[in-house]
């Protein structure tokens, strides 16, 4: 089936997505469009549906209703093509404890059908300062180092859309700063960054756009402005980020 020509602009798009777990609605009619080069913060209280939204975008959870489109193609009809353009970082590391860092990255590279896997793995090890630990079993790494390997794994295939669910969890100050620097560069390279974090100030300083979720619905979708923060009643945190965000 040829791509839908009405959606030729490269983007990730959710149309009326609902996700139910039994009677519980995790997402209700979520419609969202994310273009390449955008940096989007998904924010909301616990249980708002942030993780479900990101998992649905990563095609780990199938929506009960609605469709997901990527570059004019329905994701459920072209799963392999779409998955190849997505990188996902979640609470879980997706790493095999009894494989080394290098083996985990090489496995991911081969499953993504990358050419020159060894070179890419070496580059990723360099980029994430993991070269010295490349031969370590993942189970022997600290949580922070494991998170770095997870990020290296997610970026190994150079995805167009990087989805991150609480990426700063378990990271020390230095690793957090390094990750922040790396993530800031991605939108400049035309990659879309969609992430959730409990650290609003930190997230807001990296995002151009805020998508606020409440009880599975989008309560705000737009630029990060003082007005938007006030309407979302997150003034206490807004004060903390005034110096960081261009409000």
């Amino acid at each position: 089936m040829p791509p839908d020509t009405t959606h030729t602009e490269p983007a990730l798009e959710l149309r009326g997505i609902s996700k139910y777990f039994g009677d519980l609605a995790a997402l209700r009619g979520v419609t969202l469009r994310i273009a390449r080069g955008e940096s989007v913060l998904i924010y909301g209280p616990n249980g708002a549906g942030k993780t479900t939204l990101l998992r649905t975008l990563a095609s780990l959870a199938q929506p009960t209703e609605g469709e997901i489109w990527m570059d004019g193609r329905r994701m459920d009809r072209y799963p392999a093509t779409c998955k190849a353009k997505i990188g996902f970082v979640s609470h879980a590391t997706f790493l095999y404890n009894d494989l080394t860092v290098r083996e985990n990255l090489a496995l991911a590279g081969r499953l993504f059908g990358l050419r020159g896997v060894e070179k890419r793995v070496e580059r990723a090890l360099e980029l994430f300062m993991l070269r010295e630990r490349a031969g370590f079993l993942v189970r022997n790494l600290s949580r922070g180092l494991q998170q770095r390997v997870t990020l290296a794994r997610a970026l190994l295939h150079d995805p167009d859309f990087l989805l991150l669910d609480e990426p700063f969890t378990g990271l020390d100050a230095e690793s957090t700063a390094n990750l922040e620097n790396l993530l800031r560069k991605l939108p400049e390279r035309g990659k879309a960054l969609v992430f959730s974090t409990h650290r609003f100030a930190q997230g807001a300083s990296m995002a151009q756009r805020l998508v606020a979720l409440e009880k599975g619905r989008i309560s705000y979708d737009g630029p990060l402005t003082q007005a938007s923060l006030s309407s979302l009643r997150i003034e206490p945190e807004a004060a903390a980020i005034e110096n960081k965000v261009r409000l």
Partner: protein
Amino acid sequence: MMHSLEIIWILFLKDLRLEWRRRETLASICVFGILVVFLLDFAFQPAGEESLRLLPGVLWIAFAFAGILGFNHSFVAERENACLEGLRLAPIDAGLIYLAKLLANFLFLAVAEAVIVFAASLWYNFSFLPAFKWFVVIVAFGTLGYVAVGVMFGAVASNTRMREVMLPVLQFPVIVPIFIGAIEATTSALKGDAPGQFASWVRLLIAFSVIFIVLSFLLFEYVLEE
């Protein structure tokens, strides 16, 4: 096609490497299988003709228990750090994950079965050599069918809280035809019957294996979903 075979091979090698590092599955299923053979020998103390009557059942009971342990173990590494989800993020057919698991579990169980059969031949003072060729064919197809079901339900059970209990509860009703066919065919082969007399049982094992592998390949994606 080549790409699919390559993916299966990559995932199969990953399972072998994990098993080599952990050394859990093979060791535990071999020991458990031998214990079952030993206990049943101790309980029945068969002699002469009785050995031949009991041995097929004893062997397949040992294979069944060893297999259950193996299938549970097989998804332990995948559960840690949500590795199975990590595999699902890759642009590959979920059915290939199933086929790789099938291959790895078949190999592990086949090795354990070789050890169990060797132990049984000593304790029961029974030689498998006269019917060895057909015995191997029957065990191979019986094991294939059993593993085909076991991997599928192992994946289902891995998403449940009481997975160690759930696996046998889900699996045993489905594998009854395999075990009836396998025990009947093994008994007949070990008695020295002509292949024509147990060919229908072997055909049943082959048909069951093929049907279940095809079904599991097609349905595995839905099994992995929440």
